[in-house]
């Protein structure tokens, strides 16, 4: 029971790491970026290449799994995404689905279509018991890393100058511009960091979620649920939504394996009927 809770929390934390960038970009630029998962996949494959093929230690590869997608995100933002900010949602959806398809096919071409795993260091394998609760070492690492990152993000967003600029831009980008905040720069940086975090999530999650070229499509619905349920106005909303989703998904798959996949959709429908604007959002989403 507690082990399932533990696994669910680890899973939820991963989802948060993967999806938080998406919720910020949606809130900030009203940009629906369905290709967010592609950056996560990029991070995962960076880790796979560095660890499995080049023999880098796992922990040394993680910064690269953050940096490469972040740079990729910054590049894409400046070259392609900036053209679609002010287009309609339909255009954004078409554009980002196109990117997803291209990334899926390209990764399939370069890396092959089979599922891959990152080779983990010996110290992270297996599990130990604390008062009868089986705790996987690797999952503990995920919880610690993601928990720290969530705290860091929350601190960045609420306590720093950049955070207040970001929040101002999310609340009303026109007024923020009028106050002299360089919204484009704030957005480019946020997009890059969001992509990087997704990449890190992809690398950490390769072991738990599985990594193959279909990754961005498989987890698209999870990202959408996290953002739609959690709202786009804070970090805490998506965080709680991710935890809820992770715990319910793991518990559902464990207790009712035949219905496992349907549990999250049921929750989605219930939430939508109960609170159409998301569980934790302050204001109506735009």
């Amino acid at each position, binding site marked *: 029971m507690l082990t399932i809770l533990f696994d669910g929390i680890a899973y939820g934390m991963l989802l948060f790491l993967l999806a938080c960038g998406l919720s910020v970009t*949606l809130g900030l630029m009203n940009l*629906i970026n*369905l290709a967010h998962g592609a950056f996560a996949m990029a991070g995962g494959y960076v880790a796979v290449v560095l660890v499995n093929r080049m023999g880098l230690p796992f922990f040394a590869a993680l910064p690269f799994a953050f940096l490469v997608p972040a740079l990729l995100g910054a590049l894409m933002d400046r070259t*392609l995404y900036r*053209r*679609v900010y002010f*287009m*309609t*949602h*339909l*255009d954004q*959806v*078409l*554009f980002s*689905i*196109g*990117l*997803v*398809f*291209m*990334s*899926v*096919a*390209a990764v*399939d*071409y370069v890396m092959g279509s089979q599922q891959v795993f990152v080779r983990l260091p010996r110290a992270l394998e297996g599990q130990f018991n604390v008062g009868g609760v089986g705790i996987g070492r690797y999952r503990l690492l995920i919880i610690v890393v993601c928990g720290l990152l969530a705290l860091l993000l929350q601190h960045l967003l609420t306590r720093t100058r950049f955070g207040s600029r970001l929040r101002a831009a999310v609340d009303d980008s026109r007024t923020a511009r009028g106050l002299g905040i360089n919204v484009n720069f704030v957005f480019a940086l946020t997009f890059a960091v969001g992509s990087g975090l997704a990449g890190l999530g992809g690398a950490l999650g390769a072991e738990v979620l599985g990594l193959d070229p279909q990754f961005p*499509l498989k987890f*698209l*619905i999870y990202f*959408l*649920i996290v*953002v*739609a349920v959690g709202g786009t106005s804070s970090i805490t909303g998506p965080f709680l939504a991710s935890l809820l989703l992770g715990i319910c998904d793991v518990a559902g798959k464990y207790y009712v394996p*035949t219905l496992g*996949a*349907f549990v999250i*959709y049921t929750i*989605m*429908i219930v939430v*939508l*009927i109960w609170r*159409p*604007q*998301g569980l934790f959002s302050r204001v109506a*989403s*735009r």
Partner: protein
Amino acid sequence: MNGVRGVLTTAVADHLARRANWRPAEIAFWLAVVASLFLLPGRHLILAEIAILGLFALSLDLILGYAGIISLGHAAFFGFGAYAAGLLAKHGLVTEPLLALLVSGLLAAVLGFASSFLVLRGSDLTRLMVTLGVALVLRELANRLDWLTGGADGLQGVVIAPLLGRFAFDITGHVAYVYCIAVLFVLFVIARRIVYSPFGLSLVAIKGNVLRAQALGIPVNARLVAVYTIAAAYAGIAGALLTQTTAFCSLDVLSFDRSADLLLMLIIGGTGYLYGGLIGAAAFKFVQDWLAGITPQYWLFWVGLMLVVIVLVGRERFGAWAGSIGARRRRGT
């Protein structure tokens, strides 16, 4: 005062009535379709598929082009109709194909009606999530209920009775093509009636500005539910046509790729003038055939590239290029 209003009303009514007239280009389009029956006898199988995809795209155009609802899971209704038609035929519940087609469309409409209440809620993002979610749930159901649907192997042993008790579906696809065109034409005429009716005009108003539409006294939610249900029925009929003409039905009919391909087709042809879906389906199939000859694998990459390029170039330009048949070139949303 009353006189002025009367004149104005008549003028508006005249304008709207004229707008709904059949244009020469439209008549030429349907004549060309009929001509393809006789001129391309060897290609009837693929033409039938294009007609089915065209009908499917037409159904998406009803909700996207007219009501402005973005759907990532329109394949849900297509697949539902396809499985419904397959099961009806397999278990001998409704053997006459035309009747089975109607029943499948009705079943899909019921599903569309039920899920429309979820689609109404929230923003574009929520709609994406809901439509995608509904399609995923159905696909998972079709996969799990393998005693009913055959699971991943697909629904086998479907035997389609002769059409109207007389015309059997043959290997050359002649009957299938005539059948598809006839169904497509009838449904197209109905859709045309719908979008030029006051109901259709109110949908365009809702798409333009929900708040103003509400202020004008248009019952926004009821209209959206209605059009979503109609579109679901259309998609269900398209799916049922596919099952009936191929006597097979697999999980592929519910896949996400199908919904995404559908969006691409409609965007190639242009939204909001009904012919976009038909033209787009033909163009899509043509490109698919052509690319499959060059690179059979990695078709997905080219679909993605087309989507990206179309958006970056600007859909209006593509719409204007493809939309020479539709007299009005509207700016899409």
